[in-house]
């Protein structure tokens, strides 16, 4: 049993279902990557698992708990964190204030967590008093991930964290994500850069039209001729 499981998920935004019985799961200390062509329902699956979309069928389990009906805010309290693809920082607030807002629900002292985030992303420490809106794209993503880490979540969900950043920045961000994984957090992410993402993935899901097409380790998917031919461009 994995720590977070979205099982047989069906649902959409009203009208036809976008998710048609797909299953996505991730365990602690593991990176699971969801890839697939445009319109496959990757982001929708993420939203459903975070409670931003109501499921018509299927369930979401966190540990032993059924969280299918919990609101996103309640899921945050249960130890889940989500980094949206766009507008994922408070642009008018400083880097430090962004991190403080990430820790909003915490009543205890969070200076240690903030130090951890600054260790992970040293560039942010230097720019802690700058508005997040003035940072480069890559650093903004760091703020976004840092904000999500401030609740010390057990599950970190990332919706296309490398969209629109340069290859160098992308590599660095993936390195950091591996570091985060090593602290025992379950990481689930959707990625457009499928090849690179699968290369760091413990588990990979290829979704097509809302259904699981292939599920295997990242390595095996990268090696599979079928996956290569249809999704990775040969």
């Amino acid at each position, binding site marked *: 049993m994995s720590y977070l499981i979205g099982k047989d998920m069906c649902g959409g935004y009203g009208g036809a279902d976008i998710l048609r019985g797909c299953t996505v799961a991730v365990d602690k200390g593991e990176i699971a990557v969801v890839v697939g062509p445009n319109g496959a329902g990757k982001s929708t699956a993420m939203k459903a698992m975070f409670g931003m979309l109501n499921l018509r069928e299927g369930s979401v389990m966190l540990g032993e708990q059924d969280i299918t009906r919990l609101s*996103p805010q309640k899921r945050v309290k249960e130890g889940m964190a989500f980094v949206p693809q766009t*507008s*994922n*920082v*408070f642009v008018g*607030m400083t880097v430090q204030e962004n991190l403080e*807002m990430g820790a*909003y*629900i915490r009543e205890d002292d969070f200076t240690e967590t903030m130090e951890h985030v600054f260790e992970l992303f040293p560039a942010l420490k230097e720019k802690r008093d700058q508005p997040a809106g003035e940072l480069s794209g890559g650093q903004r993503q760091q703020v976004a991930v840092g904000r999500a880490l401030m609740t010390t979540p057990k599950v970190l969900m990332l919706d296309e964290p490398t969209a629109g950043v340069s290859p160098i920045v992308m590599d660095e961000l993936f390195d950091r994500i591996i570091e985060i994984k090593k602290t025992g957090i379950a990481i689930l992410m959707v990625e457009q850069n499928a090849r690179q993402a699968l290369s760091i993935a413990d588990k990979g899901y290829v979704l097509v039209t809302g259904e699981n097409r292939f599920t295997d380790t990242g390595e095996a998917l990268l090696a599979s001729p079928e996956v290569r031919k249809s999704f990775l461009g040969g």
Partner: protein
Amino acid sequence: MATDFLNALILLANFVIVPGVAYGSQLALGALGITLVYAVLRFANFAHSDTMAFGTMSTVLITWWFQSLGISFGPLPTALLALPFAIIITIGVVLITDRTVYRFYRSKRSSPAIFVIASIGVMFLMNGLVRFIIGPDDQRFVDGERFIITARNFKKMTGLDEGLAIKVTQGLTIVIAVILVIALFWFLNRTRSGKAMRAYSDNEDLALLSGIDPERVVMVTWIITAALMTIAGTLYGLDKSFKPFTYFNLLLPFFAAAIVGGIGQPVGAIIGGYVIAFSEVSITYAYKKFLKYLVADDWAPEGLVQLLSTDYKFAVSFIILVVVLLIRPTGIIRGKVV
């Protein structure tokens, strides 16, 4: 020659600078309320100035009651003692309005246009309520000392021909405005609730993902706005007089100030308040006497050298508003337009 120059300066200070700063502070406090509601609730609150009239009316009634009991505040106006009670009443009324009107549209995620129209409804309601309770007439409720410095004492002290009078109400307006602005910025930048308010205004969805409770943010915003408008209204009423229709008319300069400064930006609202106030006061002031001090006698102007009659002072805010919207719609400090 030097005394002529000093006289000219004092004349200007007495009729333009001191009234301008006081009026600007009143506008700044009003515009701050409009900007906060816009930033957090994302709509232009047309009921602002009429709710301000309601708050001021509460102050007036409590002041009268205190006066009848023989309570006074020495040299300061009794209204200052009544103010905290009036603020509490206004907060109550504003929160009831939010619960009965705006919350419904918030839960439906209505567009800002619907909120604006709802706020116009609230405006008419407040408008009627105030006239029903206190009537449409001019009410004076100021007591205590009238002047910090009178023109006569100033002349005696300095030996100049021109006097500088500073009213107690003007001094109070400026001191209270400075304290309130410092307190507000401290709240927004240093406290957890204040930061949550800014975060919610900045990015609503991300604020929700961070576990910030939107209803709490909205409530805090209304409480601050209600306090600001009751204080601004009371200061304006003390400085001039309380008449419901005048308060309704203040809506235009308030919006002009908020938009000129950059709507949704508290610093902008303050800058905008002074820009509008000084434009109004300096354009409607007759410069004849001022120029007489500065130029040779036979150059003295014959006319009043008044750019615009005071009857047209609202045209000033209106023109500034239109020009800003045409040339720089985001305002002086880049505000956000929903």
